[in-house]
């Protein structure tokens, strides 16, 4: 443990350090943020995650967690039941969501299952959360409603900001390369639609981002990988690039979420929920764009699958 003097206060971790539940992070002159708690004069981590330090506030961003509905979130949900005056939705959470019929029809009377039926996947907004965390959902917003075609990918909700990237850098790059339409829900479900082969590549890339969210230089590595798969190019300079990042990875400290975290922290100064707003704006933006899948697709690289499969070897 490093003991850093921070004025008169003690802090035992650095930004982006990997910490585990119960680990002492600092003395309680600091402010405990999400993922931490105060105990006998110290601030400790309550989850396995990465430290985020801003001024005197310590947070721990969990590496995994379940989605708990929050008012204003945009989510992807699946109809699990149709009832008399509402639909029940699975929103990839310990808590289910419900979409009241009046959110869709107003005062009109219609048969619910003719509009949305069991198994349909929708893009929705959390309108309200009650005291037992049950989420009331709505469809008011651009691009909200039922998805047609495409595939669903699930990632752990804490990695949603990483998938979106600094000001949408990651998600825009993927969209640009694959020409797929991508919609990200705060609850960790992602909808991808485009050319069939590109859908599959995008799905695997999203899973790779989830698995390596805590490593440095990820956006560039993902970009190189996508370029290699889609364009079949393997420029010499890009290999050097990879080596450079490999060096970084060998450093003992995890430089996780690096750029994105720093950006997020800057923005957090103004608004604690800024990261969410950014993601939300990004999600809104993606719905405005036209979905064109006319681009011809290069040969897919079969090695790609073996790269991804590596993470399965425990």
């Amino acid at each position, binding site marked *: 443990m490093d003991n850093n003097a921070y004025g008169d206060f003690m802090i035992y971790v650095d930004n982006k350090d990997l910490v585990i539940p119960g680990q002492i992070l600092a003395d309680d002159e600091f402010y405990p943020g999400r993922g931490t708690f105060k105990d006998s004069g110290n601030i400790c981590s309550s989850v396995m995650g990465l430290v985020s330090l801003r001024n005197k506030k310590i947070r721990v961003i969990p590496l995994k967690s379940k989605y708990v509905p929050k008012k204003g979130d945009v989510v992807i949900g699946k109809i*699990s039941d149709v009832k008399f005056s509402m639909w029940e939705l699975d929103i990839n959470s310990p808590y289910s969501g419900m979409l009241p019929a009046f959110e869709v029809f107003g005062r009109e009377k219609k048969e619910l299952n003719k509009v949305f039926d069991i*198994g349909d996947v929708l893009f929705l907004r959390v309108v309200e959360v009650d005291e037992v965390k049950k989420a009331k959902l709505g469809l008011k917003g651009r691009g909200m409603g039922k998805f047609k075609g*495409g*595939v669903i990918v699930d990632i752990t909700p804490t990695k949603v900001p990483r998938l979106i990237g600094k000001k949408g850098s990651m998600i825009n790059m993927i969209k640009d390369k694959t020409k797929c339409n991508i919609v990200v829900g705060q609850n960790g479900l992602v909808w991808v639609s485009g050319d069939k082969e590109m859908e*599959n590549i995008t799905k695997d890339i999203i899973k790779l981002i989830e698995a390596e969210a805590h490593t440095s230089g990820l956006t560039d590595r993902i970009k190189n990988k996508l370029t290699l798969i889609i364009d079949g190019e393997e420029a010499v300079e890009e290999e050097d690039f990879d080596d450079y990042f490999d060096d970084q990875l060998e450093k003992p400290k995890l430089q996780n979420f690096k750029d994105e975290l720093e950006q997020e922290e800057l923005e957090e100064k103004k608004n604690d929920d800024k990261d969410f707003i950014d993601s939300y704006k990004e999600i809104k933006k993606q719905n405005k764009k036209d979905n064109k899948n006319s681009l011809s697709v290069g040969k897919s690289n079969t090695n790609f*699958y073996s790269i991804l499969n590596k993470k399965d070897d425990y």
Partner: protein
Amino acid sequence: MNIIPEITKESIKNLIDSNQREDGRTIDQYRDISIETDVISKAEGSARVKIGKTQVIVGIKPQIGAPFPDTPNVGVLMTNCELLPMADPKFEPGPPSEDSIELARVVDRGIRESELVDLEKLCIEEGKNVWMLFIDLHVIDNGGNLFDAAELAVMAALSTTKLPMATIEDGEIVLDEEKTIDLPLKDKVAMCTFVKIGSEMVLDPTLTEESVADARLNIGVTGEGKICAMQKGGPQPLTKEEIFTCVNISMSKTKELLEKLDK
């Protein structure tokens, strides 16, 4: 309770229609398979098999017991399966479900009907004492196609099973744990499982593929290429042609599986 999104069903069907799968395989290709034997030192035979993300552990424990009255000179095989709640959020703790009993019985049928265990050699004292082999199948991670993984694990565990020498002295059975004999095996068996998705029969389905499939077919084939066990499952029918296609594929695929066992 677990509803598969309509668009997932569609996308898997579309892929299969163009002879593709979500993990990049062809429709008659297995995922990566790994076989480890002797993984439990307290079991007389054991194996752990992984097919893709599916993992099963098999342990074999022999016990001495009385034979069935109608077969006084043959040993006894008992296959039991536990779909552990750790393996899948849908598996519940409690007494064996229909699915787990079906799995145990289909796997058992492959072993029993291929007559690969020389049960007569498991007789210690005719009409009184024979070896009873308890085959316990533990499913620890469900990534789809439990049948083939289970059959392979049982086969691998049987082929490494060692029994203590049993002799009769003064009317009493004496076991010599130091001196062991290999379980007498006459043949081998492997199982191929197909599911029907759209108009195709797909080998070695993943969990998602299983969940969108219309029907399932298990085919157990012996080392000598004889069909020894079959089971049709799932809500929709199969045609004769579809079944013949699967049988034909299973002839070469079970050979591949058995070759992996020998390594």
